[in-house]
């Protein structure tokens, strides 16, 4: 079988490979791929104390909140008709399209799709509506409430903005949503259903009500007393839970031959997509489910474990989750696990939930640029239960790896693993 298309049947589609030709990022670390990667390279965390108007009585102390000025991104009153999550999505998508050089006006847009991921969709709009109804007993809501709050609004706005009329899908599998969007978009291009797909995800749920929900789960890290930016400590003995973030990331995925024919930048080739469900518990991670997803991604790519040169871990910094993931990595990679650099960039940009997979793919592909591997910030005292080859605090420069892996493991037991190879 042709490498990278092992799951495809039929000869007509076997040679279609999927290239990443553009990446867009909106994050607390910066609102461009260059700023995002520059911050990752310096090991700088964007986590900070949340202002009172955001956290209110929720008790949540820190988050990776974006200083977002809609007027810098949208004309006139346009932003007023877009939930914050859709604003992030449009900004990231615009960057990805521009970077790819793909001109929608000169492309058969019936062959270009949008596959998007988000956990909570228009959470700000929904919360505003509920606070009006329950808080003020006022049932007169904005007419755009439904179309701003609905889960598919972010992706649909992207499709409308650029007239992308090909296949559309919106994934909502919590923390694996946008990784799944990228994986499924890859399958759609391979199978011939589309020639290009703008794939990614966004999240914007730093609202008092959502924060209260998260806080009651008792899974969020308290503020680091000495340095709030250091509150998220994946794989560290002192870790106290995850830190929520917000933002978006978008990848322009294109059938490789078409992308090369038009002279597009080829940033990476997506060759492996693993997707499994733990099917054992709503929130407790399961080693075997994670192993199945990583194994499937490796098998599909045709790579040996030792071919992977960097793993961007799910690494949320929860007590249980980090240990399980490291066990799963050791189980899949065996001896190679001691040599493959693993880091969790959530330590710097926070957990984007539905947007995490896409943003972390943008981080995972970083070594293909200059061989620079992003670190796990705030990792000082490594938990022996998290024994893998870590990249603590400082980025490492090495040879450009042949392939990288990005893990996204979600509440509900959904596990998605993506593998990309250098172009």
């Amino acid at each position: 079988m042709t490498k990278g298309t092992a799951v495809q049947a039929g000869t007509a589609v076997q040679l279609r490979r999927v290239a990443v030709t553009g990446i867009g990022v909106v994050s607390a670390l910066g609102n461009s791929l260059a700023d995002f990667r520059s911050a990752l390279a310096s090991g700088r965390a964007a986590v900070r104390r949340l202002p009172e108007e955001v956290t209110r009585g929720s008790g949540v102390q820190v988050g990776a909140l974006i200083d977002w000025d809609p007027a810098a991104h949208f004309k006139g009153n346009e932003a007023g008709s877009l939930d914050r999550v859709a604003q992030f999505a449009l900004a990231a998508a615009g960057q990805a399209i521009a970077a790819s050089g793909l001109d929608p006006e000169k492309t058969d847009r019936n062959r270009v799709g949008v596959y998007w991921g988000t956990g909570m969709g228009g959470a700000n709009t929904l919360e505003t509506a509920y606070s009006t109804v329950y808080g003020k007993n006022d049932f007169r809501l904005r007419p755009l409430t439904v179309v701003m709050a609905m889960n598919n609004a972010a992706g649909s706005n992207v499709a409308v903005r650029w007239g992308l009329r090909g296949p559309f899908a919106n994934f909502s599998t919590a923390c694996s949503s946008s990784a799944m969007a990228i994986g499924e978009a890859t399958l759609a291009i391979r199978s011939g259903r589309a020639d290009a797909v703008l794939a990614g995800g966004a999240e914007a749920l730093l609202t008092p009500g959502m924060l209260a929900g998260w806080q009651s789960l008792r899974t969020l890290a308290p503020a680091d007393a000495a340095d709030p930016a250091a509150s998220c400590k994946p794989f560290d003995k002192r870790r106290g839970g995850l830190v929520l973030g917000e933002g978006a990331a978008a990848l322009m995925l294109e059938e490789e031959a078409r992308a090369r024919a038009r002279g597009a930048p080829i940033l990476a080739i997506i060759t492996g997509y693993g997707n499994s469900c733990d099917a054992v518990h709503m929130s407790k991670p399961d080693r075997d489910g994670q192993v199945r997803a990583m194994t499937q991604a490796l098998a599909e790519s045709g790579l040996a474990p030792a071919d992977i040169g960097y793993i961007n871990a799910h690494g949320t910094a929860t007590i249980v989750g980090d240990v399980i993931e490291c066990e799963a990595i050791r189980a899949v990679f065996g001896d190679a696990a001691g040599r493959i650099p693993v880091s969790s960039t959530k330590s710097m940009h926070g957990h984007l939930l539905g947007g995490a997979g896409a943003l972390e793919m943008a981080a995972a592909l970083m070594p293909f640029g200059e061989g620079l591997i992003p670190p796990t910030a705030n990792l000082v005292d490594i938990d022996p239960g998290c024994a893998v080859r870590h990249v603590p605090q400082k980025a490492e420069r090495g040879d450009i790896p042949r392939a990288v892996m990005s893990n996204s493991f979600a509440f509900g037991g959904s596990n998605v693993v993506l593998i990309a190879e250098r172009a």
Partner: protein
Amino acid sequence: MDTLARIKDLAIKELALDPAKIDPNAPLADLGIDSLTFIEFMFKVEDEFGVKVSDEDLRSIKCLADLERHVAASAQAAGKA
């Protein structure tokens, strides 16, 4: 300021319409106002004038001049004129 002038001002502010091109008798679609945009605009109009335009009346509004008549009638009925 009369009702129509206030509606025009609101349309310029909320819908980014060109003041020079607002024809009160032009069909809403000709002003680039689609049905969803119009319903959202009506929400602002109701806030601005403190009136409530019924669903039935809403369906009969085809231009800004129609809107003015309904707003004026609603305001009068509410004793606000």
